[in-house]
């Protein structure tokens, strides 16, 4: 089991969700995040004082999947999130040792879906 963490542009969330749904991935968790990467920040100015803002709004998506689903999932995310411009984001894949469904107590591969 793997935990797929993806940072994407906020306004791409709906597209990513749709691509995931198309491929049968229905369980995701989304968190508001701020990121800084290759995408340059921008200058805000408030009452005449310039401020370099380099934390940009991002969406952080977490999807736990069985190993066989990893490729499908990352492909779907990429399809939904890629614009080709800097700031598109990253995907990180981490190992999960165990999964438990709180409602039923099921564990492992059964629990994840």
């Amino acid at each position, binding site marked *: 089991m793997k935990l797929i963490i993806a940072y994407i542009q*906020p306004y791409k*969330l*709906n597209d990513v969700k749709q691509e995931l749904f198309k491929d049968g991935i229905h369980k995701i968790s989304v968190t508001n995040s701020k990121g800084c990467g290759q995408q340059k920040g921008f200058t*805000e*100015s*408030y009452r005449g004082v310039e401020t370099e803002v380099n934390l940009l*709004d991002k*969406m952080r998506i977490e999807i736990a999947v069985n190993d066989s689903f990893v490729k499908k999932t990352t492909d779907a995310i990429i399809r939904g999130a890629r614009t080709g411009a800097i700031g598109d984001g990253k995907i990180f894949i981490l190992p999960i040792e165990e999964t438990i469904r709180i409602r039923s107590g099921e564990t492992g591969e059964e629990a994840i879906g």
Partner: protein
Amino acid sequence: MKKIILPIFLLLGIGTSAFADDASSIELLLSSMDMIWLTLAAALVFFMQAGFAMVEIGLTRPKNAGNIIMKNLMDFAGGSLIFWAVGWAIMYGASYGGFGSNLFLFSEDSSVLRDWIFQVVFAATAATIVSGAMAERTKFNAYLVYSVVISGLIYPVFGSFTWGGGFLNELGFHDFAGSTIVHSVGGWAALMGAIILGPRIGKYIKKDGKVEVKAIPGHNLPLAALGVFILWFGWFGFNCGSTLSGTDLSIAHVAITTTLAASAGAIAAMFTMWISMGKPDVSMSLNGALAGLVGITAGTWAVTPGAAIIIGLLAGIIVVFSVNFIDKKLHIDDPVGAISVHGVCGAFGTIAVGLFANKPDDGLVGLFYGGGAGLLGVQALGVLTGFLWVTITSGILFLIIKKTIGLRVKDHEEIKGLDMEEHGSESYPGFQIFHNV
């Protein structure tokens, strides 16, 4: 004129002898009544700017709130300066000694000044109505240009046909406080603006040849509600002040028809939504109250309280169907419902005068009170004239802006939000905002 000293002065002796001349005192009192009445009414109508701003902010997304503030502040600021320069002269020049002598308000006649302050806030209302329909995608400099032209030209010219004493006035067109003259003028300009701009990104999604209509929910309903309460409060000045005299005893009548129509509008919109959609929708009920207010504005003086309730109920129903029709059928994107509330309900209210008016002494009798279709016809003519004048002129205006400086921001600016792109800052830094739309 120093504080306090003056009134004390008045109280000691000088007063009594000076005021021995009763007739002149009475004259002064009558003038003063008009003076304080219209100034206070003007203050209330001015405050409606805050109401419009809060409604528009509340019903749009957080990334554009600062831009909306700027539009609502600047359409008043620019509008009042241009109305000072030429708008007033166009609209009322004929009644006050000619166009030329009314440019730049050189008059020192207190009654002219009094009328001016009351009129300028109406011009600004007409201008600011448009802001809501064009929210979240209009270039700021384009908006500034538009707002100066409507307050300086489009509104005053139509005003000159009516309140200014022009041909519609002579035909007997009755629009007491401006259902058509103010609200529809704003509403029809909003219509043209929204059409020429096009919808916000993501509002109408084409999918397999069909158009899917999406909701873009407003981000702050409490502010929107506050805005509606402020508008309703301001309407006491808008409608009651339109007696134009503080010694007109019909003021309470106007206040009552205004209040009852607004109440009826809110209730009607709520139940219409409840029945047709299954839930009493908050923002549409707020629109309903405004619809009732706009609807009664033309006839507030001329109809009975009972008729006011009927007008309000109808306006509340109409606004729901109109919003739906414009959104789901015409696919014109009007984030706050300005076209329906001000344009459509303004037209309806003006025509309703032809049906419900009941002031035989003033020759104002509507169809339902046995007055025949004459008044109705004149009212319809006024509505039509307004519609044509505004759609044509504002249409040309928006097209010229589009071809020259551009009317709409770039896509990436719209996505990022106008606050960042047009004004360089955010409106709610600190708050975590879910920016997925």
